[in-house]
């Protein structure tokens, strides 16, 4: 099972003076169970691409299949229904998701989508409870509060819980940690990792933070000018210096540090995705020379 993006091209405002091709012949498969990071400079097509993953945008040409079903199938009635169900498998958390909160209480906000699915109140409550616990918000403490009384990090959790209540199989997170302080960011990243590991939700994660990508992802997709520039493991992706530069990206901070250290004459292994790995490499290189 997977999301297949088949030769997708997308043009904004075709046949107008503002016509712009945001995606060009994008062809890739996101496997179920993977943790895929999407990076690229602003305007590279990342957000346009992820909006295709649950049918918010329809390809100008090409196809998007979720578990084999065309998201934009509109032939027979059964095809349309299958497309709707397939779109529901893919949850989407936008940039600054907290701006989309609107209900009076946190419960009502998270319950909005499951209620729209036509679930009974008991099921709705069960889903809200589960979603809140998944993002680390105590049910009794928060359910009756207004979402607008919360801190930025908490509001973003409520927004994510609202999507989790739909029980998506695939979850797209567009810059989930932007604007959060260090503590809020680390906590949210831990929660995302748990969702992936414990609930087996396939993650698609758009980020500008190469440090986060290096720690979290098992696949990295670099976009540039609406095309796929590279789709590989983080270890190999961040070694591809020319590609990184072409994409307007830089390696994780720890790798840049190790490269500078190597350039200063220490023969250190620059291949490290986390600070801990980097420190191990430093200890080996610096001690090694001491004999």
């Amino acid at each position: 099972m997977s999301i297949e993006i088949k030769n997708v091209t997308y043009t904004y405002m075709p046949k107008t003076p503002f016509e712009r091709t945001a995606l060009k012949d994008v062809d890739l498969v996101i496997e179920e169970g993977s943790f895929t990071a999407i990076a690229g400079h602003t305007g590279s097509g990342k957000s346009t691409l992820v909006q295709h993953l649950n049918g918010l945008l329809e390809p100008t040409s090409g196809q998007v299949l979720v578990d084999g079903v065309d998201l934009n199938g509109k032939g027979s009635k059964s095809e349309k229904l299958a497309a709707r169900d397939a779109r529901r498998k893919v949850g989407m958390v936008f940039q600054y998701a907290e701006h989309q909160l609107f209900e009076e209480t946190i419960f009502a906000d998270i319950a909005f989508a499951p209620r729209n699915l036509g679930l009974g109140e008991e099921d709705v409550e069960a889903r809200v409870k589960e979603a809140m616990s998944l993002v680390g918000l105590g049910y009794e403490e928060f359910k009756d509060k207004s979402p607008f009384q919360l801190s930025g990090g908490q509001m973003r959790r409520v927004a994510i819980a609202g999507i989790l209540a739909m029980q998506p199989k695939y979850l797209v997170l567009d810059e989930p940690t932007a604007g959060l302080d260090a503590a809020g960011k680390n906590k949210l990243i831990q929660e995302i990792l748990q969702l992936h590991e414990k609930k087996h939700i396939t993650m698609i994660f758009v980020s500008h933070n190469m440090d986060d990508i290096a720690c979290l992802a098992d696949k990295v997709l670099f976009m540039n000018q609406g095309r796929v520039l590279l789709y590989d493991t983080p270890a190999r992706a961040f070694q591809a210096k020319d590609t990184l530069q072409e994409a307007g990206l830089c390696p994780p901070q720890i790798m840049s540090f190790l490269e500078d250290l190597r350039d200063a004459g220490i023969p250190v292994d620059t291949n490290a995705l986390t600070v801990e790995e980097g420190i191990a490499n430093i200890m080996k290189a610096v001690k090694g020379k001491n004999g």
Partner: protein
Amino acid sequence: MSFIELENLSHIYHKGQENEFPALRHVNLSIEEGEFVAILGANGSGKSTLAKHLNALLLPTEGHCRVAGMDTRETDAVWEIRQQVGMVFQNPDNQIIAAIVEDDIAFGPENLGVPPEEIRRRVSEALKTVHMRKYRTFAPHLLSGGQKQRIAIAGALAMETKCLVLDEPTAMLDPQGRSEVLGTVKRLHEEKGITVVYITHFMEEAIAADRIVVMEKGNVVMEGVPKEIFGTPEKLKQWNLDVPLAADISEKLRRKGWKIPKGIYESEKLIEVLVKMAAGRKSVVGE
């Protein structure tokens, strides 16, 4: 007299109501003309509330905020203050109003009654500064987040303000966009002497400032040059802030028994130390 003076300033949201919340508590802070001040602090520490006082978007519940000698509570002074202090917010979608990029940038000077020729000059100058000239006839909603943010900065520049207050302007940008925005801000500061108040969560951006102010729970808890602030990683963690990479590596190596001197926060300094260690010295004496 300093350009900006906050005197015993408190701000309480929903005062007198059940959800009353003190966001700033008796803050005293002066910012000199031409200074570059970075403000750090966790979410909810009062940074944005403070920023909104600087051009009278919020008024103090108690105490005073003065800009170029004018008290923000004097209603007659508000327009003059807003002309002197330009604001750039975190999310550009909340501050772009026109249907075409150039119109958006022209909006501020038009309202000031600037002659059309001069407006045209300012708009093209501002677009050039943020490297967005080729997008001047675009509709803003067709731009990406980073491009929109640069338009917002251009809008403030077209007002030819003396002071720019930027509230996490790079939170949504890619690394290249971030360095472009920061580079633009630095250039405006250095070449035009613009006073900069820069709120950020990125420590590598704060290093560019002359002075850093750290906020926690509505109080200013520390002020100093970057070296003073980043030399104490324990405190940064206590305030829920990121630690610069070099300080983090240094601390972790120390815990493994390595003799790395304290107070290192720049990568170049740490590399120097490591190179000396590799050359055979058992420890290196700090500066």
